[in-house]
């Protein structure tokens, strides 16, 4: 067999292996999380925890109260992280790095609090170990837990009937997400990573004398503990500038598969949790089906593009190897790229800026879809449920009936929220991009003028607005202009949808469920799965086709 055939077979085998692992974890983890979020029992440690922190984990919160808790916690997080960044040179383990400048500290504080992990700085040259551990790694956990909590609150909205808009307790959801789900998996994953060569120490970055007599710095740091939650919590902020392309973050093809698995683990298990909590597992299958369908199409397209290697540079080199690691190869780089942009992760094991135009275009499109294939931890589920409601509404219009989803009538109030939610991120992305390409400080950051430069800027705002964090890193974004603008985009892109989702959860929880009738659209069948995926594609397509035509499409055709 030719090497190309072997490469394609290996790419297929790798995908099958990944799907088998995710499939094996799906039912047990989904069921476990359903128990975590519906149990009324607090462990002894948790009771102590709530007592020390002085919150009441049993009070059912009205959606507005739940939202205030989310916002209050996130505000505290932004302030703490801003302080840690500004003051890192006065704290231990600073490795001699200076404090971050105000715009940079703001950007990083927002970035990690919003589960985006956009990084304007280079980890090994700007962030000391304390900032990484006590600042960034903590937010890797809790920002993921916030997303999961909000998703579960929305699911409760569907599952409950006729309450006074009470949707659970944020502090209990947050704590349980961390201590019962994220932390145990992270500990195991971190140790597997260390066993494979991911470093875990508190050493500074020190120079060694190389074989040819030169000096090379071998970095130190608690990397594995951060790497595990970076992927599991769909965060994506690398300890090092090269992120998961760095051999100390991702040393071999096995850790590479493990990291992709961790990225997709919770997002693909949450639909199961959803199905169990609403009392109909088939509903979970339908949501998972729409997510997986979009994911597989993106994987196929990106893998094809990177293996085929169209474009001037890949043609000149003979393959699209620029920005990719030899140990992973083209297909595993494409797979990682789709996993990271289909979720809100943004970790990279290859440089997206150097992807082929169609490959880079697909991963950009993946983010513009709103990251629902399968989406970030929590954020993917609530994003897809919003699209499911939109699909029900569209179908209702076609047959002229009041739309219902899971026994809840989708009336004017619900649709207003859904419409606002669907429009929020595109507005942030398009307005942000338009501003950046209209003003001098925005244009100054562009590395390559023309279609690729527009794609760089669009990618940055798509990444920030959708809380992804990956970049077409040719864009010089560590400037006050981009740090401020992208910070605002991340903030709005995270909390406006969360506020809308919680409002929707409150409305749904206060509705009485209506029994399904002969006219109710079944929402667990393949037809509906196709409808949801189509709605996602059409909404995004109509919104972004003009700018995509000027960016990646123009570049692909050149």
């Amino acid at each position, binding site marked *: 067999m030719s090497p190309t055939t072997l490469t394609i077979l290996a790419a297929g085998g790798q995908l099958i292996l990944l799907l088998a692992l995710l499939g094996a974890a799906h039912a047990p983890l989904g069921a476990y999380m359903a128990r975590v979020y519906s149990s009324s029992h607090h462990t002894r440690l948790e009771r102590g925890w709530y007592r020390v922190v002085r919150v*009441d984990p049993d009070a059912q919160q009205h959606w507005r109260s739940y939202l205030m808790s989310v916002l209050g*916690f996130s505000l*505290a997080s932004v302030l703490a992280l801003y302080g840690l960044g500004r003051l890192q040179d006065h704290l231990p383990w600073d490795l001699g790095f200076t404090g971050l400048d105000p715009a940079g500290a703001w950007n990083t504080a927002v970035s990690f609090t919003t589960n985006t992990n956009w990084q304007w700085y280079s980890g090994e040259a700007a962030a000391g170990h304390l900032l990484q551990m006590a600042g960034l790694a903590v937010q890797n*956990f809790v920002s993921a837990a916030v997303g999961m909590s909000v998703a579960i609150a929305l699911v409760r909205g569907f599952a409950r009937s006729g309450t006074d808009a009470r949707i659970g307790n944020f502090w209990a959801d947050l704590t349980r997400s961390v201590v019962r789900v994220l932390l145990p998996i992270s500990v195991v994953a971190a140790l597997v990573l260390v066993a494979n*060569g991911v*470093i875990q120490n508190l050493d500074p970055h020190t120079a060694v*004398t190389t074989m040819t007599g030169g000096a090379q710095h071998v970095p130190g740091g608690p990397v594995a503990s*951060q790497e595990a939650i970076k992927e599991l919590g769909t965060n994506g902020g690398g300890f090092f500038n090269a992120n998961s392309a760095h051999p100390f973050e991702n040393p071999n093809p096995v850790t590479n598969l493990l990291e992709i698995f961790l990225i997709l683990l919770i997002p693909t298990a949450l639909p199961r949790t959803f199905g169990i909590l609403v009392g109909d597992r088939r509903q979970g299958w339908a949501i998972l089906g729409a997510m997986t369908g979009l994911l597989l199409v993106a994987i196929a397209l990106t893998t094809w593009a990177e293996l085929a290697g169209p474009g001037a540079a890949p043609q000149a080199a003979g393959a699209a190897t620029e920005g*990719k690691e030899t140990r992973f190869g083209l297909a595993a780089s494409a797979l990682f790229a789709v996993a990271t942009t289909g979720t809100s992760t943004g970790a990279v094991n290859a440089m997206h800026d150097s992807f082929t135009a169609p490959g880079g275009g697909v991963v950009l499109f993946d983010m513009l879809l709103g990251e629902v294939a399968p989406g970030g931890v929590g954020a993917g589920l609530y994003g897809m449920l919003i699209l499911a409601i939109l699909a029900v509404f569209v179908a209702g219009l076609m047959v002229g009936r009041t739309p219902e989803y899971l026994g809840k009538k989708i009336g004017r109030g619900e649709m207003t929220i859904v419409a606002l939610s669907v429009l929020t991120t595109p507005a942030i992305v398009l307005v942000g991009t338009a501003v950046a390409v209209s003003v001098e400080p925005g244009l100054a950051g562009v590395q390559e003028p023309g279609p690729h430069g527009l794609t760089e800027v669009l990618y940055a705002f798509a990444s920030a607005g959708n809380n992804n964090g990956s970049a077409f890193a040719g864009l010089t974004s560590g400037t006050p202009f981009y740090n401020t603008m992208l910070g605002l985009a991340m903030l709005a892109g995270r909390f406006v949808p969360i506020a809308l989702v919680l409002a929707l959860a409150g409305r749904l929880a206060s509705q009485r469920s209506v029994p399904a009738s002969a006219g109710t659209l079944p929402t667990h069948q393949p037809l509906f799965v196709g409808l949801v995926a189509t709605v996602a594609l059409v909404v995004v397509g109509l919104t972004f086709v003009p700018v995509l035509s000027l960016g990646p499409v123009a570049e692909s055709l050149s």
Partner: protein
Amino acid sequence: MTDIDTPAVPDHAPRTPAAGGSLTRQTLAGVRMLLAFTILLGLAYPLAVTGAGQALFGWRADGSLVTADGAPTRDRAEAAGSALLGQPFDGPEWFHPRPSAAGDGYDGLASGGSNLGPESPELVASIEARRAEVASTEGVDPADVPPDAVTASGSGLDPHVSPAYAAIQVDRVAAARGLPADDVRALVADHTHGRTLRVLGDPRVDVLALNQALDQAPDQALDRAPASR
């Protein structure tokens, strides 16, 4: 905001910012929660993983350091690099790694790629220049220079090259060291990794380990003492 508690839910006062409350009160609760999480996740978790990692996989946890003759070490003073990180090699007696965009090349404090796009004239020009240079260094037809030899990796610290790039370097290295080409080819084969489980990763040659093994090969007529540093 207005009080939204209803009598239906028992009030667990006095320690209860959970139900209702202003943003200020929730933020104060958030501060306490964050402080507790910082101790648990920001200190206890990484330090516990560090302790366990150091105890169980100490050499790995410290960066897979190796001495000049390839032996594992945990002492940075006697290390000649990390088995996982590529380092620069030039000169006819060494196998050369891929081009690197990390600083001036393989800079451990500046990991990263070029981030040049697929239509970048600058990237195309560097690829053409590298192809000409590699072809002349190795004495091969420019068309036989493989893609990884003319493109920079994502990390700039890629420790591997493709088997094709290693293959075109064999004759040059063998000549420079006065070793039979077949012996060098056998060493390359020893340091070539296939796909894990036949599907994961691409076939690759570990450049640092290969060069260290070369230095250990007996009977070579090299002008300089082996492993002189």
